[in-house]
């Protein structure tokens, strides 16, 4: 369960998030939709304790990220890139991450297998292609077998097989009771997997609800999005 309550953030002198409020529930795939620069990544970074908001709270299972003990067992995050140092091998990277949260080294081989990187375990992360980097990032997120998954543009850089694999993986995760929050600007893709949708534009939440409700009378999610963000007056719910 993820609860974001009236989060506002200023970067330098520009305000980038205005009273952002929403929830992501367990057992659902929640899609966080918005154009580039809308504030999706900023919100996620605040949720994950990487950045501080000026106001508001972001809670995972009722607690701020920084207060979680062994956070990787609760939340698995996939942000851009692999998060690994260029000169380290994939295995060495996963091993230190595993150690940091008291996870057994056997998990390293398990997650490498899940994402299909077993053969590349001894390659340096700097030699990975874009797709391989994302898979390494996902492997890192899965090390702790977390109940919450937070993914920022997860299909970015994946080939069609990879995209399909990700889609099924996220649906299965939700069906197993996990909370899945993913952000994207690819509306077609999001419409395939999301149960709940939150639309953000220019730092404000424009609409949120079940996928069908957000689409409403429009033909597609994309049509709905453009219609909803066309009016400047759209305020936060």
């Amino acid at each position: 369960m993820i609860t974001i309550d009236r989060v506002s953030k200023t970067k330098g002198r520009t305000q980038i998030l205005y009273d952002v409020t929403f929830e992501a529930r367990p057992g659902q795939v929640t899609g966080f939709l918005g154009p580039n620069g809308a504030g999706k990544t900023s919100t996620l970074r605040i949720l994950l304790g990487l950045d501080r908001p000026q106001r508001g709270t972001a809670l995972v299972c009722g607690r701020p990220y920084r207060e979680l003990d062994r956070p990787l067992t609760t939340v698995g995050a996939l942000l851009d890139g692999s998060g690994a140092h260029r000169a380290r091998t994939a295995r060495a990277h996963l091993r230190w991450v595993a150690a940091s949260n008291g996870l057994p080294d056997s998990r390293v081989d398990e997650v490498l297998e899940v994402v299909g990187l077993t053969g590349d375990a001894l390659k340096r992360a700097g030699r990975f292609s874009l797709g391989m980097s994302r898979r390494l990032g996902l492997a890192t997120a899965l090390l702790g077998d977390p109940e919450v998954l937070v993914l920022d543009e997860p299909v970015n850089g994946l080939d069609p097989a990879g995209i399909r694999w990700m889609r099924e993986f996220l649906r299965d995760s939700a069906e197993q009771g996990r909370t899945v929050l993913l952000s994207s600007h690819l509306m077609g893709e999001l419409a395939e997997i999301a149960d709940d949708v939150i639309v953000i534009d220019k730092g404000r939440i424009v609409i949120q609800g079940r996928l069908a409700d957000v689409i409403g009378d429009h033909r597609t999610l994309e049509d709905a999005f453009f219609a909803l963000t066309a009016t400047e007056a759209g305020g936060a719910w």
Partner: protein
Amino acid sequence: MNTTRAELRKLVTLPSLRLTALLTWTGTLLLTFAYASAESRGEPLGHDAALAPLGYTQAGFLVLGVLAAASEHQAGDQIRTTLLAMPRRLPLHAAKAVTLAAVTLPLAAVTAVTSTVPAGDTARTPAATAYLILTTLLAAAVASLVRRAVPAMVLLLSLYFIAGPLLRARSDTIAAYLPDTAALDPSRGTAATIIWTLSALTLAALTVHRRDA
């Protein structure tokens, strides 16, 4: 503790650190040889042959500290992974310092021995070892503030090898306040080294605690 284990694994799997360690020790060996050979030729290179090589190879320890800390921010966004896995920043910072000191200890000891023993001055080996470890920690603190290796090195090299000698030549009193005086003269400036290092570490800890990742 988990954090320490993780940081330890990080340090021993960073190839550039191993290379730096090797080069530093080799450099010390060569310089010690140079000093000894000059003495035997009747042309001593001046003052303290036991510690003088360290005055140069301490640069290697600066590099060690800078690379260890800067590696979080360069060549990939590892700092993000680190903060996601270990979000409490003050304990993380402390664990990083402790592991770096632990990993540096063998190199520092070997280097100090290489420099002091041939000159027959083993009494100062422990002090030299401690100095080198503190220097590494200071460099790491600076690099975690600056977040990039080259600027951090420019800063440190300027202080240690340009500003330091200049200031030391002008005034003995200033010399006691500089962090690197203890390299050549442990009887003075030891307190300075310790205070500089602790201050840098504290400043870095506080900054990292509040800063966006």
